[in-house]
């Protein structure tokens, strides 16, 4: 489904990614973790067309992504749910979700919204409420819901647990696992290894702009190797 091969990119002259490679197969739930400032969000922004590819290749569904804008990628079925509860705060939950179908499927937005609300029953009650009045967990659900409204083949979530209480985090993980039934492919970027372990099948560790480790996290959650990547070698 997605094949990222030796990509480099950055902001202006500052290089962030230095030859990162990973693959995600159709229907798979894959995690991406690593220390702050090492390029996790940059990789997502690159894949979703917000940043240009300097070198390397990205193949999505067999087509190479070179310098697309997000619009055409979205119509191909690749959706990026951005970090930090970004919503249209002065619009209702329903309006936020409707906008998710802006690029593809505007006419079917009502039917799609019913489907998305069946995944997030909590949001159904809040359909007419302004997004700014929602709790952190609810906002995250709306963010994912916006992504699902375009009926994507692949969804990329950037730090969905940011600022969430542990209980809400567990609920969110359950909801994410329930997405498997929709057949969507998922990539989750998060700092929270426990959350990734609950929600994904395997994960990549991104450090210094490169993928340095692939793990299923189940055996290795306390692995010294991961700790070493986060905190450096023990003295």
């Amino acid at each position, binding site marked *: 489904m997605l094949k990222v091969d030796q990509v480099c990119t950055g902001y202006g002259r500052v290089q962030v990614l230095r030859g990162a490679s990973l693959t995600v197969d159709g229907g798979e739930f894959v995690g991406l973790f690593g220390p702050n400032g090492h390029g996790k969000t940059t990789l997502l922004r690159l894949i*979703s067309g*917000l940043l240009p590819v300097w070198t390397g290749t990205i193949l999505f569904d067999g087509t190479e992504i070179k310098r697309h*804008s*997000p*619009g055409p990628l*979205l*119509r191909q079925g690749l*959706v*990026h*749910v*951005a970090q930090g509860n*970004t*919503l*249209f*705060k*002065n*619009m209702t939950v329903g*309006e936020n979700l*409707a*906008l*998710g179908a*802006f*690029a*593809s499927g*505007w006419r079917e937005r009502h039917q799609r919204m019913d489907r998305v609300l069946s995944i997030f029953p909590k949001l159904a009650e809040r359909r007419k409420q302004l997004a700014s009045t929602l709790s952190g967990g609810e906002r995250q659900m709306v963010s994912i819901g*916006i992504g699902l409204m*375009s009926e994507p083949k692949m969804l990329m979530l950037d730090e969905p647990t940011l600022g969430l209480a542990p209980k809400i985090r567990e609920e969110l993980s359950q909801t994410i696992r329930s997405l498997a039934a929709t057949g969507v492919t998922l990539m989750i970027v998060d700092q929270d290894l426990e959350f990734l372990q609950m929600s994904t099948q395997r994960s990549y560790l991104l450090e210094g702009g490169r993928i340095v480790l692939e793990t299923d996290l189940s055996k290795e959650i306390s692995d010294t190797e991961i700790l070493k990547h986060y905190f450096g070698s023990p003295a």
Partner: protein
Amino acid sequence: MASGLSIVWSVTRVFNFAHGSYIMLGAYFAWSLIDIGQPLLIAGIGAVVGTGLIAVVYEIVLIRPLLKSESAILMVSVTTLAAAMININSAQMIWGPRVKQIPRLANGTIEIFNTAVGTQDIVIAVVAPAAIVVLAAFLRLTRLGFALRAVEQNHDLSRLIGIAPKLAYSVTHAVSGALAGFAGFLLGAVVTVVPTMGNDPLLKAFIVVVLGGLGSITGTVVGAYAVGFVIAISQYTLGLYWTPVVLFFILIIILAFRPTGLLGDRK
């Protein structure tokens, strides 16, 4: 008029000082169409479409290249002021210095509570709020309206869901220009059509938009009525020349206590 200025601010975060001259252009377009024998309806449509197109051209040629600049607000303000001067002087060259007048949509006066009110004034009092209702419906119910509101609220997320911000900017300026053109068409029957006829409405619209809260359409409507009442009362009691002083005094007092205007976004 003020609502056009307000949506441009809320979507693109720049202030368009050429907006007043769009009113004047709308009035001249309407006058020219009537001059060659077209009916009022065609003149009105011509004013709306012509001014809308000019606004889009200005957006693409003058405003868009400056938006990436760090001091975009300042640069766009200065550039649009220059555009206003170009418009005013071009109008002077094209249509000459002689004053013109658009025929009224309705003639005569109607007596309301022992006061004679011009029928045209009543037409404006009915049509202007209707235009706002149409604008609100456009923003709330259409796909394009949704897109404009989305860009206004969250630029990055709008891009991620596939809205092209450039298109949204152009549409915003088109709508704003069209509203100004329509205002010019209505106003040209009440005041004389001269190249500087947009200056006074621009000043009032500026006060209305800032008072009501930048970017808030509801605030703009509330601001418009508030300013209208203040002007009426001040002109009756203090006279014409003191009215701007009173208006700005009230504006300063309100901004001192509510820096984002009456209904503006409190960020």
